[in-house]
């Protein structure tokens, strides 16, 4: 079997507003426009990925929260309707998703070998979360490659950001080993925002961009600091500053997605490409392509 590898990683945030504004055929609500910078950033990411063919997308999602370690989708096929419980007026999406079950089982196996609690999710009635769906849709709207979705463990809340980052680092390395054993060419997505304080109201027309801006200057400064690290290839620094980022900017990286991604990529020192930065209902979001470390 060919040695599998990671072809690229991406910070791929999941605000349902993006699929809404795309007027994706799978999504029931219709929009006039909205959040163009981020949507065009995803377009640039898709274009860039055309030269990096992949067999599978592995996505770590904040909106599948689990308390017993790290769960992994491991049923071959899911279809149904996903209605976002938070923004149901924007996201009512019909999905049809194929899962790479052998790779999913390998991720569980390697995670357990690393001392983590992990389990496959085999219930066919499971409804796929909108984090998985939005990130995958924006990266690969044709849905023609299988996915593996990994849940977000509550270890950050149960213990601390430091403990959470340690677990996610181990999970990232385990994921890389699983990919190597599978022979797959994998694209990895961290489905999270950066700063994550929302406005609690929205305008009458959700896509009226005259109302859209970052929630506060503090969040903006933190987002720029983190993007600066990524653009300079200082990926370890991102994780080192993670506790402060989480505390001071309410960052969604608390879900572990970004640390998992950077660890799986081998904490690359090569510069990342920021395809876009924009806000969605006050939260900071960036579409960032991160190359795997040449050392792994």
């Amino acid at each position, binding site marked *: 079997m060919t040695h599998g590898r990671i072809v690229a990683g991406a910070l791929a945030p999941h605000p349902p507003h993006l699929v809404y504004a795309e007027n994706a055929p799978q999504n029931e609500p219709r929009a006039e426009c909205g959040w163009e910078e981020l949507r065009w950033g995803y377009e640039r990411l898709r274009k860039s990925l055309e030269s990096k063919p992949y067999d599978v997308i592995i996505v770590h999602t904040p909106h*599948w*929260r*689990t*308390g*017993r*370690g790290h*769960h992994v989708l491991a049923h071959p096929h899911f279809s149904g*309707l*996903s*209605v976002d*419980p*938070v*923004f*149901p*007026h924007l996201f*009512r999406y019909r999905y049809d998703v194929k899962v790479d079950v052998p790779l999913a089982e390998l991720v569980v196996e390697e995670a357990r070998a690393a001392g983590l*609690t992990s*389990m496959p*999710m*085999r*219930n066919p*009635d*499971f*409804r796929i*979360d909108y984090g998985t769906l939005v990130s995958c849709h924006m990266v690969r709207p044709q849905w023609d490659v299988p996915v593996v979705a990994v*849940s977000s*463990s*509550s*270890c950050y*809340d*149960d213990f601390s950001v430091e403990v959470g980052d340690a677990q996610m680092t181990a999970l990232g390395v385990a994921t890389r080993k699983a990919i190597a054993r599978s022979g797959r060419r994998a694209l990895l997505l961290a489905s999270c925002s950066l700063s994550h304080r*929302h*406005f*609690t*109201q*929205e*305008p*009458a027309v959700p896509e009226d961009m005259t*109302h859209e*801006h970052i*929630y*506060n*200057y*503090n969040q903006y400064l933190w987002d720029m600091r983190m993007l600066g690290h990524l653009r300079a290839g200082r990926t370890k620094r991102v994780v080192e500053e993670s506790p402060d980022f989480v505390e001071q900017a309410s960052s969604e990286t608390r879900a572990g997605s970004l640390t998992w991604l950077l660890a799986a990529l081998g904490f690359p020192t090569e510069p990342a490409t920021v395809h876009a930065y924009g806000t969605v*209902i006050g939260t900071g979001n960036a579409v960032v392509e991160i190359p795997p470390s040449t050392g792994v």
Partner: protein
Amino acid sequence: MRNPHVPLSLVVPGLPHPLLAPDRCEAWAHVREGFESARALVDASGADTLFIYSTQWPSVLGHQMQGAQRLVWTHACPEFHELGSIPYDFAFDAGLAETYAQCARNRGLHARMIAYAGFPVDTGTIVALKLLDPARKMRVCVVSSNMYADRAETIVLGKAAVDALRETGRKAVAVAVTALSARMIPSVIEPSEERVALARDDEWNRKILELFREGRLEDVAQLARTFYREARADQKFKAVWWLSAVHGGHNEYQGEVLAYASLQGTGAAVVALREGEGLAGDPEFDEDDVEFFRGERSVLSPTVRQATPQTEASPALGVAGIVS
């Protein structure tokens, strides 16, 4: 009776074990028995409505009231999917939901009724409805748990629920779907290994239950933040803020702890509260008794306050309302 619209309040846990697997574990069976005792109290209460606040339905844009007339689905719990699926067919009271949303807006809150086919009813609400009203005799209204709402906002949300009950003439059982300590045992365990995750969580849970047993609902509400800090109470234990505001913020209740055990390490209690002769008397209030919500206190950026969007749905919330 101080609040004739709410003859009974309940605190119930929201994990699926008592519904799907009560026979596998003594603790899960005990919680199931607590639900069955609670169901008998619901039947005897004379109420026509279950009014539910679930910590497992998060919201960001203010407060959402479930108004779908019918939701049919087969649910798999995102956490305990291996326990099996739960088919449901629920009807919700759109009239009450809309009235509740309007009453909430009248008190300065951002609120709306939602009604979408396929909307994912959360595990906690499903468990509560299945076990408290298996014959679907009651009308049902469910409200979300806003992740940013702190005590003042949640109390106003509870008062708006009373406004809605008064306006519609309904008599409701108020149900807080919440764990006590919410810390799970972070590994897969055998049913025989079931226990509260940490001894200190167990000790805090028992202290809170002692207060519930003495009918001191408002005292529990005032301790919620401490309880959250010390024992990771579920979602800041804000469901009890809502419950205290709905039933009445005082300590003159008859409290009954119908069950207490653990579900995957979390503190799971079934508690019933009815107005009665409490032992503790009325409490002193540690904060203003809020009647109208005046918005978030945006302390970090004045410019945000000026630019926060208004909506047609909240005409009372002008800029002055947001910053004051």
